C-alpha cells in the first residue's frame, strides 16, 4: 500500500513556503510603493503650497509697487536722463583741450579749423622756418596723425605753416 499522506504533507509544506514568500514579497512591495507614493504626493503638496504662497505674496507686493508708481516714474526718468547726458558727453569732442594743445611757443595761430571728423588744421605764423618746424615736431609728439600741408613765406605774413593734426594722444 502506497502512503499518500506523506506526499500530501510534503506538498502542503512547499505550498506554505511559497505562500509565505509571495505574501511577504507582496507586502514589502506594497509598503515601498505606499511610502514612495505618500512621499511623492507630500512633495507635490509642499511645492503646491509654496507656489500658492508665492503667488499670493506676489499679488500683494504688486499692489504695493503700484502704490509707489510716482517713485518708479521719477527713477526711470532720472535714469534715462543720466544716460542721455553721459552719451552726449562721451560723444562730443573736447575742443578746450584740443585748442590748448595746438598752440606753440614763438608761433601765433592765424587760422584754426576743426572738422566733424576730428581733424584740426592750424595756420601757424612764425618768425622763421625753424619755429614752424619746432611746432610741427611738437604736434608729432601730441597727435597720432600730423601733416604739414604747406609752408610758405610772404612779406605780409612771414613764415606760415599749414599743419593738419588728428588723434590727440592720451586724451581723457
Amino acid at each position, binding site marked *: 500500500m502506497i502512503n499518500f499522506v506523506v506526499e500530501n504533507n510534503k506538498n502542503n509544506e512547499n505550498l506554505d513556503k511559497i505562500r509565505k514568500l509571495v505574501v511577504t514579497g507582496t507586502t514589502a512591495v506594497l509598503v515601498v510603493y505606499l511610502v514612495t507614493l505618500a512621499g511623492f504626493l507630500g512633495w507635490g503638496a509642499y511645492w503646491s503650497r509654496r507656489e500658492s504662497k508665492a503667488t499670493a505674496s506676489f499679488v500683494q507686493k504688486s499692489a504695493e509697487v503700484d502704490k509707489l508708481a510716482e517713485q518708479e516714474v521719477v527713477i526711470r526718468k532720472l535714469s534715462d536722463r543720466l544716460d*542721455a547726458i553721459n552719451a552726449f558727453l562721451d560723444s562730443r569732442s573736447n575742443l578746450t583741450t584740443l585748442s590748448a594743445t595746438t598752440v606753440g611757443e614763438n608761433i601765433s595761430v592765424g587760422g584754426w579749423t576743426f572738422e566733424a571728423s576730428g581733424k584740426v588744421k592750424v595756420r601757424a605764423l612764425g618768425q622763421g622756418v625753424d619755429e614752424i618746424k619746432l611746432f610741427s615736431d611738437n604736434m608729432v609728439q601730441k597727435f597720432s596723425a600730423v601733416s604739414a600741408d604747406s609752408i610758405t613765406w610772404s612779406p605780409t605774413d612771414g613764415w606760415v605753416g599749414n599743419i593738419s593734426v588728428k588723434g590727440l594722444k592720451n586724451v581723457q
Partner: protein
Amino acid sequence: MYSNSIVFKFLWVLYPVVVIFLILFSLGELSSGGAGKLEALVKKQDEAAVEEQKLNVLQQKLDILRQTDVKVESENLAWTTKAVPAGKEVWLMMAELNNAASVSGAVLSSYTGTVGDVVEATAAASVNDVPISLEVEFKVTDFAQLQKIISVLEKSLPLVSIAKVNFSNGSVKLSIVGAWSGWGKAASEALTPLPEYKDKLANLKIRLQEYATLPEVMVSSGSGQAVNPF
C-alpha cells in the same frame, strides 16, 4: 466541501494580484495627465521656483521704491534736465552763446539754425529727433578769444557740442549742436527691474561740478508744454 477547501487554500494568491492591480491602476491614474496628476506634481516645483524668483525681483524693486524720496529725486531730475533738456531749448542755446561772447569779449555777429518742433516731446507725442543745430559767427581779436569761447561753451548747461570750427581773419564760425532728449515711455510692467542710477548720478555730479548754468535758465516742466525762455 473539497472545492471550498481548495479555494480557501489558494485565497492568498488574490493578495498579490490585488496589490499589482492597485499599483498599476494608481500609476495609470497618476500618469494619465490632467490636474493633480504625476506630471503636474513634477511641474509644481518648477512653477513654485519661477513664482519665488518673480517675488524676489518684486521684493528688491519694492525695497528700492520704499527708500526713494520723491522730492530729492525730483530735484535731481530737474538738475539733469538742465543739462539735457526734454525739449529743443534753442533760446537757452542762444543765451549760452551770448554768455560766451560776453565772457570772452567777442562779438556775436550772427546765428542761424535748424530747430524743428520746439514743443517738449512727451511719451505720447511723436519725437522730432532732428538735433538743434546752430551756425554761429563771432568777431574775435585772436585765437585766445576763440579758446575762451570754446571753454565757456563746453562748461555750460544745457550741454552743447561744437561740431565745427572755422577761425580766420578775426572771425570764427562755429557749428553748435544742442543736447536734448524727449521723455521716454516708462516701463509699466511690475516685474521690470528698476535701473541702477545712484552711482551714475554721483559720478555725473562730480563730472559736471564745474559746469555753469545760466542764471535765467528755465528748465522744462515735463508737462509737454513749450517752455518760454523769456
